[in-house]
């Protein structure tokens, strides 16, 4: 009887997964085997391995890597400080709050901030550094992405730091370790799980960014995400767009597998 009931409860979940996860994936895979004239072919896959697309792939992975790296660099110390704060719930709330605001709104806010004659530009001019193009550069794209992803990195790291038993830290000090040695040999390894889930939570979405790329980087940064958008909305080459999506999905699977296995453990 219980078995039957469990199955009944599963129906909505299975329907959801089937309709919104498996079916789209299957369709993407299906479309990837058709060229722009609608003929079945492997041409798209061959095209992916031409320099244009390979460069795009490398650039995507590179940007995602930098975004993840800088996010981690900011998020880890922040999460650490957070665990030592008096009213950490409040601070945590303040960090989570921006994630409730639509990403497009935030992107437009940054366009205003970073644009020509915007506050940052003006400040730079006043400080004597001179006016320069800030918006529509690779670095502004990384900067804004890092800003957007920071909360998603902080949360898992904060949680693992919270769970870290303070007596491990004391034991390390007791055994003669300096603050840095304690961090490197005890605190960081014991919060690696949080770091890994944070890196996953940032790297995977960063790999497929396209809206933000367009708005902040203009056409200076071309990634797989923007290429998919281009193929679907501009060139109408759904087959090639799907093929790129297939490779993106494969990349994500690889990242998850790597992070799950704990390759960072050897650190």
């Amino acid at each position, binding site marked *: 009887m219980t078995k039957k009931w469990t199955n009944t409860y599963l129906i909505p979940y299975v329907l959801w997964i089937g309709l919104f996860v498996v079916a789209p994936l299957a369709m993407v895979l299906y479309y990837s085997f058709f060229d722009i004239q609608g003929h079945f072919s492997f041409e798209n896959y061959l095209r992916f391995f031409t320099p244009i697309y390979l460069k795009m792939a490398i650039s995507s992975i590179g940007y995602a890597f930098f975004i993840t790296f800088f996010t981690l660099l900011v998020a880890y110390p922040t999460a650490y400080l957070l665990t030592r704060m008096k009213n950490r719930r409040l601070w945590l709330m303040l960090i989570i709050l921006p994630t409730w605001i639509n990403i497009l709104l935030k992107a437009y806010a940054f366009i205003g901030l970073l644009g020509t004659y915007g506050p940052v530009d003006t400040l730079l001019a006043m400080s004597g550094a001179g006016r320069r193009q800030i918006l529509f550069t690779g670095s502004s794209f990384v900067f804004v992405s890092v800003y957007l992803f920071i909360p998603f990195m902080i949360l898992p790291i904060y949680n693992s730091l919270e769970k870290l*038993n303070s007596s*491990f830290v*004391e*034991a390390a*000090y*007791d*055994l*003669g370790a*300096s603050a840095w040695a304690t961090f490197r040999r005890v605190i960081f390894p*014991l919060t690696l799980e949080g770091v890994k889930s944070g890196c996953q939570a940032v790297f995977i979405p960063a790999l497929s960014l396209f809206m933000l790329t367009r708005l902040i980087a203009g056409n200076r940064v071309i990634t797989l995400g923007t290429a998919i958008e281009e193929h679907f909305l501009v060139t109408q080459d759904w087959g090639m767009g799907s093929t790129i999506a297939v490779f993106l999905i494969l990349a994500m699977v690889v990242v998850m597998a790597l992070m799950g296995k704990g390759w960072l453990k050897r650190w």
Partner: protein
Amino acid sequence: MTKKTIIQFDHVAKRFDGEIILKDISFAIERGKFYTLLGPSGCGKTTILRLIAGFLEPSEGTITFDGRMVNKIPPNKRQVNTVFQDYALFPHLNVFENVAFGLRINKLTNKEIEPRVKQALHFVNLDGYQNREIAELSGGQKQRVAIARAIVNQPQVLLLDEPLSALDLKLRTAMQVELRQLQRRLGITFIFVTHDQEEALAMSDEIFVLNQGKIEQSGSPRSIYDEPINRFVADFIGESNIIPGTMLKDRVVSFAGKTFDCVDQGFDEREAVEIVIRPEDLEIKPHGEGLLQVRIESQLFRGVHYEMIGKDEDGNSWMIHSTKSARIGEEIGLFFEPEAIHVMRHGETEEAFDRRLESYEGAGHD
């Protein structure tokens, strides 16, 4: 301070947020001895250990280590290692790496580290456990790894915060013996924290009995057991009968409506006192014999002995430990030696107590 002294507390006080946790603690710890801090939960034992280890700074007073004031020296710069109450073994390292931790911090080479780790594991009877993961160990084994991890650094003082409290009774008793032997073999100072008075009596060279942030009494297990300074110590160290009495003159005390010979002196005439007699010092005699008559009210079999509660004619309760049993409701006689009577003065300080004892025992009391 003598040459033997390794740690000294001088009028150390500790406050947390204005609340006084330790008040005016002074003591000297000598090299190579086994000390126990004994007291009920919350009395400040861990706080004292943390002051010695360097995790806390005293609010007042000074702590001296090997002749040097160490109030502000951080824990990683002290020649003291701690066995934590929850062991605090690093879960991401195996047994070998846990034990090697302090040596690696001190930048020893692998060649130097390996024999020392093996020797430390040998000391705690864990030969061949190097490659085990921490999660695979039992409570007693974790305990030993924690000790090995501390002693491998050859500290001058080893601090142990209730290390046996998580173990079952049998293992605990075995570990008590092992720890005591280990201390003797290593020849370093152990400062051991426990709330278990039997453990303290069994293991220590010297016991500090703590209560509410104060040292009530310090001394050898024997002297603390035989001559508790006050009601708290008498009660905390083993079972005892504590009865109000009057000191008639030197070596004569009256309680329970009768007059008895005793061995205590140095009191005022007709001073109100409390007398302590340990349950195992009471001997059961037939009704009418002995020094006191009681009616048995309850009896429990405690394994080795019977524990009986009797009431005398004055209404005082007497706890009796005896291998003989009695029937409930039975009238029996109780006999005890003059040495079994210990007289306590109300509100006597430890110094005054020691002075009074020395005045008539000579150098007999230590």
